[in-house]
């Protein structure tokens, strides 16, 4: 059995002729908070969708908790998409019922407690809720699980700085510490303080995968500063040799 929670080898994904991921090799262990960092169109969402089983790789090998993607891996992955997935007729409690039925690790009481602390009324119809409240419900569904892997796709995109802190605090106070959190974002400065590892993705390729401490020690700069250097000042190293 592998010690890694996420393993990818030679992972390719193309949409038609357009490559989204090109030969991604990746291994992430348990108990980590990992930033999946890259500009728009770098392949972050594609990688997350592959991990949660919404997409099939064009080529390569991919495993979560030592298993190929399937019902088992879906049962240990808690996924926050970058969009709403609610049906209009539902209330938050309907979703809680659904999650309790399908996920053994879903904590029903915790979901209600989180709703109370986030100021969400779970018996209200979702279609009457504001966008921000719906996002909170979606966050509650994800964080009320004791999952092995949390896949959070742009959880702080499109919200004001105060809301970003609020969301990050909710994630940090509720995640399973034995599990791994993979957060995709291009807002590096907001998440940097909570990250253990950073993965830089550019044009479907991994440019860098290191611990945040190693980056700071080696480069003598913050992850945000390094990110800006790599993605704004053009290539600073040969792609063949890696970082």
């Amino acid at each position, binding site marked *: 059995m592998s010690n890694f929670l996420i393993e990818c080898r030679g992972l390719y994904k193309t*949409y*038609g002729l357009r490559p989204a991921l090109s030969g991604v090799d990746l291994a992430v262990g348990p108990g980590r908070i990992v930033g999946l960092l890259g500009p728009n169109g770098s392949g972050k969402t594609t990688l997350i*969708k592959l991990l*949660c*089983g*919404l*997409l*099939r790789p064009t080529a390569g090998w991919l495993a979560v908790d030592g298993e190929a993607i*399937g*019902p*088992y891996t*879906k*049962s240990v*992955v808690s*996924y926050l*998409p970058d*969009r*709403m*997935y*609610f*049906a209009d*007729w539902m209330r938050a409690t*309907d979703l809680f019922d*659904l999650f309790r*039925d*399908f*996920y053994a690790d879903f904590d029903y009481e915790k979901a209600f407690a989180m709703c109370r602390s986030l100021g969400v009324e779970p018996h209200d119809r979702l279609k009457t809720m504001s966008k921000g409240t719906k996002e909170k419900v979606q966050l509650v569904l994800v964080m009320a699980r004791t999952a092995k892997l949390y896949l959070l796709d742009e959880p702080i995109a499109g919200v004001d700085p105060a809301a970003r802190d609020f969301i990050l605090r909710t994630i940090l106070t509720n995640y399973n510490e034995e599990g791994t959190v993979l957060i995709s974002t291009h807002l590096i400065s907001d998440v940097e303080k909570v990250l253990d590892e950073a993965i830089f993705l550019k044009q479907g390729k991994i440019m860098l995968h290191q611990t945040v401490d190693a980056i700071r020690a080696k480069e003598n700069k913050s992850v945000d500063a390094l990110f800006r250097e790599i993605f704004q000042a053009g290539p600073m190293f040969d792609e063949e040799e890696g970082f």
Partner: protein
Amino acid sequence: MLLKLLKYDSRAMWKQFSLIWGAALALALVHRLTHTLHFIVTLGTRIANFTNLALAIVFVAMFVISVMFIIQRFSKGLLGGEGYLMHTLPVRPWQLVLSKLICAIVTGLGSCVVAFLSAILMYPEDFQRFFQSVNWLKLFRRLLQNLGTLVLAAEFCMVILSFLILFISTIYLAISIGHLFSHHRRLISLVSFIGLYILIANIYSWVLSYKVIQALVDAATVNAYGSMLTDIAIMLLPAAAFLAVVCWILENKLNLE
């Protein structure tokens, strides 16, 4: 897991159809009551005319909503935004499709039953007298003595069910084919739906051109029992193939963008 999916899908169905089914039955009752208003004939006739129209609208609406529901539950539920939820549940794609199919069949049958009940309710006949006029015991005894009639009735029900399954699985495959394209998905789905029925007709005419197959079909359809069983097979075979392709597309070609 399939039962859990069915619970979720039937809840979605009930939220939508409880209102329309209830409205159909309520209007049928109103229509019936207006026929008993002999003491205010003019008003009664006006109300009856109105409820006739309203009931016709409800029937048409029920059919249209049933088809729309079948399309929407599949396209939005599995290939739209809700797909982000459904495809990350720890289940296999075939379970998702089967759950949607069962729910769609129940919706179709439920609408038929409600339409039938509404027609009975509308009929201006004294139910008590009607039920008393039939010797039910004798009727059941005769039915049990002649089991062939029961088998024929069961086969007829199966023919209707098979027709419904083929219709729904063709809709599912047409939508799935449309999903494979990035533009004009609805148009491609519509063309696919028509194309799939043409394909079935062509395949069967090609298969039946073989004398051996034709002889087998002739032998199987010598009586009503065999004819209906053959019809069931003719409809269920392509339906099974269509559903298998739908599951393959969901498993391998899903793209919720």
